[in-house]
């Protein structure tokens, strides 16, 4: 039942450097574009979402779920993973600073539910998250996610 989140990730970047929250979201957006999930316009839409609604996308301590709504800029939908070498402030009182940015793009409101369930499982696993945010390479991230999926299967 548990989907391996690694298989759903369009791209994984570890220990990246971002000067501010916009740069951090741009990295997540670039990952979605590189994986063919979205066009560059979606990256701007993710930044606009935070400008409009505030830094609510920082949904847990250290974790931002960058996303916008389904739009023509979403080609296939997907998920990108960016861990930051230096934590970045998003302006979220409860959960700053951010060390992990996950970019999310969906074609519609239902297509990605299985992926979201898998993502929820990973993000709520404290010990796994500790390993994931310090992972130095994409292969390390994939290995941890693979272990999690195997353990949940």
């Amino acid at each position, binding site marked *: 039942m548990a989907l391996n989140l690694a298989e759903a990730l369009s791209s994984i970047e570890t220990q990246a450097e971002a000067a501010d929250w916009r740069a951090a979201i741009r990295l997540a957006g670039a990952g979605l574009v590189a994986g063919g999930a979205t066009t560059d316009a979606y990256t701007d839409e993710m930044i606009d*979402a935070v400008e*409009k*609604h*505030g*830094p*609510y*996308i920082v*949904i*847990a*301590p250290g*974790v931002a*779920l960058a*996303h*916008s*709504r*389904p739009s023509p800029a979403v080609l296939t939908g997907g998920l990108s993973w960016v861990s930051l070498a230096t934590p970045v402030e998003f302006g*979220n*009182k*409860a*959960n700053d600073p951010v060390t992990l940015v996950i970019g*999310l793009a*969906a074609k519609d*409101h239902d297509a*990605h*539910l299985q992926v*979201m*369930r898998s*993502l*929820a499982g990973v*993000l*709520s696993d404290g010990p796994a998250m500790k390993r994931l945010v310090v992972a130095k390479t994409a292969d390390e991230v994939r290995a941890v996610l693979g272990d999690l999926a195997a353990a949940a299967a």
Partner: protein
Amino acid sequence: MKIVAVCGMGIGTSVLLKMNAEKVLAKLGIDADVEAADMGVARGAAQTAEIVLTSEELAEELGDVPAEVIIINNFFDLEEITEKLTAAVE
């Protein structure tokens, strides 16, 4: 009982919040229907829901609604969700 999980876009954070709220409700044995909604839909849905779950930033944006608005800081902290939901339904 009707509960609405609200986020700006209705595809990301509210979906995660809905999933975790459902886990908590099942554990508490509370029969509730949890809907994920974006801000636009939520303003309407919150008129008929008993409880709205959302983040602090969005609670301000949502403004006054008849439903009880519960602010969740950590969407993955099932204990926080359990505590706040329990307090709200009692």
